[in-house]
């Protein structure tokens, strides 16, 4: 050892790396001439040429020093136990190593150059395992330790964390992995979640996203969905409390839908796509777990609807001439946007015979009259989901989306006299004060049009909305995915 030098070094190696094996003679040279600590990631008996190597099978040293490649030779600061890692050489390059150490004729009997191998710290899944182990204080949530024989899946049920379906147990490693999906700090508060109005951190969103089955790449979308749900105009608290059916419906637009492989095609409103299924579910779990909103508690729905497990889809934006929902709402085609609608079931609009836009629009309008009740006007908003074949009929007839909207508006104007209680032998109806008015089925901005579905089938759909709409209830809200 060269005691005149105040400089010290650390070398990180693994036996499974051929380059590390190749440079064994170099390691021996350096060990004799430098103040050197050798850390080995896999086999504490390696390298055999020296004694006093340090077992780093825990990868603690490698992790804290951001080792990406082995071998890595680090120049450590004197009088400091924490190497800065600022100065290092990676892989084997004789010229570089000689310059770095000031020692000549290093490894003169071996090849002068050989690239290194990946550090074990970067094995798939390992960064998050190590982060959970060595940066545990990153995660602030209470830890729930299970008894040895407790079944982890059942434990989630027993603690009331599930919507009824199994959840993915939110272990620290999984949550750490989820948080890698965003640059946002785990401690950032994104808002207060009703009904308990407790602050919700990015970390809590990540935990529930894990439970819902999300991949880390979905997290920015989930965060946008939660932020949208917390906008005052959406009225999440009232939506949760209502005896009516409704619950958040999530529509995603823009490039993010392709990045995370969402489904806007065949069975778009149904099951089978992980992103569709889990992003919608994550919001529901957050309202349940963070907000404390549970059926029979604050959630007082008479019947509810199956979309309360999850209701999330993306729009078919394959036709560049047809504006998307997000564009209707003032965003650009290139923006990734989530829009939330307080809606409930899916009602089909079957029309296999219309070949003109005029006929099809009348079909749509007639079906839209039944939203909430055929004689209730200006109450519930709705989304009309136009299927690709119906869009084709509209386009071949030269109609734009704007023209369709206008036609529906015109078609749905109705004299109040037709909507009075008792008319058609139905006691339900509009209040007397509307008798002499001309009413529209939907309030201004109450009818939204999106496109989705498979290319075969002249079946569009109506997603009817909560009867408390507009200023007195919920309005569609949008949020950009960051």
């Amino acid at each position, binding site marked *: 050892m060269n005691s005149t030098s105040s400089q010290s070094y650390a070398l990180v190696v693994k036996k499974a790396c051929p380059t590390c094996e190749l440079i064994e003679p170099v390691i021996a040279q350096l060990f004799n001439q430098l103040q050197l600590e050798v850390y080995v990631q896999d086999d504490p008996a390696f390298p055999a040429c020296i004694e006093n190597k340090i077992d780093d099978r825990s990868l603690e040293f490698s992790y804290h020093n951001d080792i990406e490649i082995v071998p890595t030779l680090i120049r450590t600061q004197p009088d400091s136990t924490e190497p800065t890692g600022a100065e290092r050489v990676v892989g084997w390059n004789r010229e570089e190593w000689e310059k770095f150490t000031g020692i000549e004729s290093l490894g003169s009997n071996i090849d002068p150059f050989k690239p290194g191998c990946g550090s074990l710290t970067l094995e798939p899944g390992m960064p998050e395992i190590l982060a959970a182990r060595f940066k545990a204080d990153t*995660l602030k*949530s*209470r*830890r*729930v*330790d*299970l*008894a*040895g*024989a*407790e079944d*982890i899946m059942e*434990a*989630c049920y*027993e*603690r009331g*964390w599930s919507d009824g379906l199994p959840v993915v*147990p*939110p*272990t*620290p490693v999984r*949550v750490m992995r989820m948080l890698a999906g965003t640059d946002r700090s785990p401690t950032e508060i994104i808002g207060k*979640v009703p009904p*308990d109005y*407790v602050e*919700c951190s990015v*970390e*809590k969103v990540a*935990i*529930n996203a894990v*439970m819902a089955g999300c991949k880390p790449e979905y997290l920015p979308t989930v965060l946008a969905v939660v932020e949208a749900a917390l906008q005052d105009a959406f009225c999440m608290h009232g939506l949760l409390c209502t005896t009516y059916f409704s619950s958040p419906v999530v529509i995603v637009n823009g490039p993010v839908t392709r990045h995370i492989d969402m489904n806007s095609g065949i069975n778009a409103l149904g099951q089978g796509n992980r992103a569709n299924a889990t992003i919608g579910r994550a919001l529901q*779990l957050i309202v349940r*777990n*963070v*907000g*404390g909103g549970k059926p029979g508690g604050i959630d007082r729905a008479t019947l509810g609807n199956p979309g309360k497990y999850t209701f999330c889809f993306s729009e078919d934006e394959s036709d560049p001439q047809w504006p998307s929902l997000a564009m209707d709402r003032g965003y650009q085609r290139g923006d990734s946007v989530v829009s939330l609608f307080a809606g409930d079931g899916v009602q089909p609009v079957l029309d296999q015979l219309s070949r003109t836009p005029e006929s099809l629009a009348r079909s749509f309008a007639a079906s839209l009259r039944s939203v909430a009740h055929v004689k209730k006007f200006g109450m519930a908003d709705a989304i009309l989901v136009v299927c690709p074949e119906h869009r084709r009929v509209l386009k071949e007839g030269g109609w734009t989306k704007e023209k369709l909207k206008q036609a529906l508006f015109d078609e749905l104007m109705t004299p109040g006299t037709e909507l009075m209680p008792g008319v058609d032998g139905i006691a339900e109806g509009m209040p007397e004060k509307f008798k002499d008015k001309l009413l529209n089925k939907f309030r201004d901005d109450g009818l939204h049009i999106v496109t989705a579905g498979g290319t075969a089938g002249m079946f569009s759909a109506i997603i009817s909305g909560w009867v408390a709409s507009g200023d007195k209830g919920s309005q569609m809200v949008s949020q950009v995915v960051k």
Partner: protein
Amino acid sequence: MQNQTMLDPTSELSPVERQLNPRLESLAGSTVGLLDISKPRGKEFLDEVASQLQELGAKVKRYSKPTFARVAPLELNQLISNECDAVIEGLAD
């Protein structure tokens, strides 16, 4: 077996331990199940408990386990939870 740890997905307003069911506010008008675990003299003891409960206005339903040595069968648990607002289990002779 390895200990498992999860992160709490809730707002952490409640203790992490399992929660007690809500307590009855009054016995009057409620149905109380008496579960005899089938140890000797259980009947005499529970007869007395039943008459005192009835004096307080409770309706009493009687159940018994097939054997005290085993946990109650699932069907019995379901029956009691469907028919009763509360249950008292006789634990020893």
